[in-house]
């Protein structure tokens, strides 16, 4: 297997779902995907083409939210990142956890730190934040404000 045939196959299989392809370097390709077809794209890369699901990362870019699903083709040293853009007023996407277990915890983490809803997630509990953390406050968003009145933010000198 080689790099170009793999990219060609992805383009061919996800013809209607790809918004843009950014060929960053020999090891790295970003592919913009429509949010509604993420499950199809993940199925294609993970199940059909044998890529490994590395991790997903959620980014708050002020006017929109982005999720990058990183898939690696280890034998040809290629990292394909599926990029999904979500509008701030509708932060919903289909969960990938039913497809592969590796997406379970990272989706829980994105849910509590960024407030993205994953539809069809089997076990959406809190993962990292403590019990006393208020509902609806998302610490990794750009507009996060300190809510804890007891927090000490100086070094005392």
């Amino acid at each position: 297997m080689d790099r170009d045939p793999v990219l060609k196959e992805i383009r061919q299989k996800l013809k209607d779902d790809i918004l843009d392809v950014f060929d960053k370097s020999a090891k790295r390709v970003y592919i913009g995907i429509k949010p509604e077809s993420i499950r199809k794209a993940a199925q294609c890369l993970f199940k059909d083409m044998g890529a490994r699901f590395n991790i997903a990362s959620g980014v708050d870019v002020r006017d929109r939210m982005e999720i990058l699903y990183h898939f690696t083709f280890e034998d040809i040293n290629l990292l394909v990142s599926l990029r999904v853009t979500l509008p701030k007023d509708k932060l919903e996407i289909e969960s990938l956890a039913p497809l592969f277990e590796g997406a379970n915890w990272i989706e829980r983490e994105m849910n509590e730190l960024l407030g993205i809803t994953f539809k069809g997630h089997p076990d959406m509990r809190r993962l990292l934040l403590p019990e006393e953390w208020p509902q609806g406050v998302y610490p990794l968003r750009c507009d996060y404000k300190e809510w804890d009145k007891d927090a000490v933010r100086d070094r005392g000198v």
Partner: protein
Amino acid sequence: MGTKLEALLKSPWVFHLSTGSCNNCDIEVLDCLTPRFDIERFGMLLAGSIKHADVLLVTGSCNRKSVARLKRLYEQVPKPCLVVAIGECSLSRGMFIHSYNCPVPLDKIIPVDVYIPGCPPKPEAIIAGVVKLIERVQEKAAAKK
């Protein structure tokens, strides 16, 4: 500090607690136990359980989840005990001072006896800090007599 504490400090057993550190301070604490630095020549031993310890070594920036565990451990130390804060994170939270997850520094949660600064502090600094603490306690006890 009573005579009991002074007696314990002939051979203080230390318990090492990480409250969300990057593990660099923990590696330096473990370095202290290696033959090169050999902290046992001062009688110090790493205790496996907090209930056997006289000194509590704390590293890390005290995040929200570990604060509850820290308090629980501090309640279990046989008193009198000494608390040693190791590294910039447990002194003032270092670069994490504005983090949403680190609201309160260590010395606002439990009383701290020695601060050992550094990111991470060298094993020499850790040993020097603990030895200074022991000497101070012994001097105080001697002055009382």
